[in-house]
């Protein structure tokens, strides 16, 4: 393990539940969404940690816990040596300077009624850092940095294309020279040719400014490209956490294998060669997650044990010290999961073709 001073963010057994309330005047809690359910993760300075998972796995909620947008239910988040999990309101303000977020939707994350200059200059206003001409100068510097024409200072978001709007969001996030940027699906709403532009920009900015990224996406190839380490989430828990290449080359959790095999490949021969592990069923509801290992109802390798005992996220036999897997029966190197189907409690989604 690396030294503690290297660690910028330490997420320690964090839980985030959202209560579901019912009633008109006297609301009472009838259930809770287990969005993040005991996640531990360390983010080191200068690295990019990718978090992948499907919708409902809690990756966006985790991102919002890290940036302080959601107060956490239980656990501890230490940022740069300071425990921020119990800070509220004003006490969080210095923290908001160091941690910024880039959002998924380039249309929704910019206020359509405000000019670009005002949007990018917001952080200076809020933290009372610069105003007037000084603010304008610094905003224009930022615009240039992210590849926008500084003369467009007075334009409205609607006058920019999706990729350019994402650049505006990036400029806003960079304004206060943050230590950490949490990117929540920053390119998934963009066209393919524009995605590459934004990814290159993010990488260049990291090299130049020494940024640390938490990069959240559902697109595995994008995450593989940008990340040093990758954590795979499933239903509020981390299923596997390893160095990027290690995870992609040698996945140990059956869910990781399935996810990797399901990714689309823009290469006909490779696409025909690979054997898709087609998982049965859908992701269960996070309101009543399955017992034991969360993945067991869909897992081709599940056994009785998996129904009862939740596996710990630990180093499994034969792996390097940084490769953690939460699985009782990790995937072996030459194993072929494509031919197996979920063994336990599965609701088959196999098509019932008419017998021809």
């Amino acid at each position: 393990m690396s030294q503690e001073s290297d660690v910028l963010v330490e997420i320690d057994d964090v839980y985030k539940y959202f209560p579901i309330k019912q009633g008109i005047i006297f609301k009472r809690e009838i259930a809770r969404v287990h969005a993040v359910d005991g996640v531990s993760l360390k983010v080191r300075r200068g690295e990019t940690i990718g978090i992948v998972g499907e919708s409902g796995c809690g990756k966006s909620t985790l991102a919002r816990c890290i940036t302080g947008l959601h107060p956490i239910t239980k656990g501890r988040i230490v940022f740069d040596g300071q425990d921020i999990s119990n800070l509220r309101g004003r006490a969080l303000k210095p923290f908001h300077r160091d941690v910024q977020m880039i959002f998924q939707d380039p249309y929704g994350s910019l206020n359509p009624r405000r000019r670009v200059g005002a949007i990018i200059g917001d952080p200076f206003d809020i933290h009372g850092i610069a105003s007037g001409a000084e603010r304008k100068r610094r905003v224009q510097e930022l615009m240039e940095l992210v590849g926008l024409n500084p003369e467009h200072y007075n334009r409205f978001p609607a006058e920019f294309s999706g990729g350019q709007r994402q650049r505006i969001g990036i400029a806003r996030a960079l304004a206060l020279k943050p230590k950490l940027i949490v990117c929540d699906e920053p390119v998934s709403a963009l066209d393919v040719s524009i995605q590459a532009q934004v990814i290159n920009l993010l990488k260049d900015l990291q090299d130049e400014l020494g940024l640390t990224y938490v990069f959240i996406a559902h697109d595995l190839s994008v995450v593989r490209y940008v990340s040093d380490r990758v954590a795979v989430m499933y239903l509020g828990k981390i299923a596997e956490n390893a160095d990027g290449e290690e995870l992609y080359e040698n996945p140990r959790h059956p869910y990781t294998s399935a996810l990797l095999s399901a990714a689309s490949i823009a290469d006909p021969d490779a696409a025909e060669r690979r054997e898709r592990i087609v998982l049965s069923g859908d992701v269960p509801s996070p309101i009543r997650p399955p017992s034991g290992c969360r993945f067991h109802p869909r897992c081709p390798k599940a056994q009785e044990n998996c129904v009862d005992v939740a596996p710990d996220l630990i180093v499994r036999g034969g792996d390097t010290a940084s490769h953690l897997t939460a699985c009782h029966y990790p995937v072996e190197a030459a194993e072929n999961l494509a031919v197996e189907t979920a063994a336990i409690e599965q609701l088959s989604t196999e098509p019932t073709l008419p017998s021809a």
Partner: protein
Amino acid sequence: MSLTDLEAEASVPPASEVPGGRAIEGRSPWQLAWARLRKDRAAMISLVVIILLVVMALMAPLISKWVGYAPDFGDRKFGQTEDGLPVGLTGHHFLGTDRFGRDILVRSVYGARVSLLVGLVSTALAVIFGVIIGASAGFYGGAIDTILARFMDVTLSFPYLLFALALAAAFGASTPLTIFVITFFSFASIGRIVRGQVLQIKEREFIEAAKSLGAGSVRTMFVDVIPNLVAPVTVLGSMTIPTAIIFESTLSFLGAGSDPRTPTWGNMLSDATQSYTVAWWTLFIPAALLLITTLAFNILGDAVRDALDPRSERLFAAQKANRKKK
């Protein structure tokens, strides 16, 4: 920082600068809306009508002086026929007189004053209260929301006509009372819609972005929420004006609005019930004015809504609707 490579790689000028691309000027959403509104002929005619009405109302004393009759006093000389009936459209009275021999033209322009004043002032007040209450309810949520939302519900369930008649009976009919009554019964429906809008805006990502920058809730409210309310509130306001004008006339007609002696369109209509069988103009002229005014405001309000709601979105909605037909 030496970022030359980086800048070179990153700098992608917007589509507006692509050779042959369409030049897009830096126009604000309001400029765009105004450009769209200007193309709408019906809206422009309505706007001209409204401006004419306002000018007419402002010039009421001048018009009164010019034709030589006061609004409140009957013309003993030419105002009535020998049988004491209203006179028709003559050289002395361009729009005739009513059963007291009062000049209808003069009374109509004075009536426009009351109608427009009540319509605009009560709408403005209703919008102010509606936005404050609706926005607070939506933005702060929780107990504040519960209390304010229930308060608006209670207001909306009042039998407003009975309430207005009762107030008029208790305090005596007057214009300020009319304004109070109309405001009281209009703000809640505006407030309810504003609350819904705020709840929607609150879910938008740019609010989250502001929060993640450390912006306080007051700042977020004024910088990010309120500006996004301006468009829907403008539409709501322009739709409320004609309702308020009709409301005022209704109250006057029932004798619960302005003092029955003040020249208002509602009072004129009320008077006309006594005389329209022999003098159609006593009914026709105030009714026509009321119709033209409310129609103009309604058409303009409609057009404002269309102008503020960009065409692309409507096109998209039409496409979706089409898909559903399948």
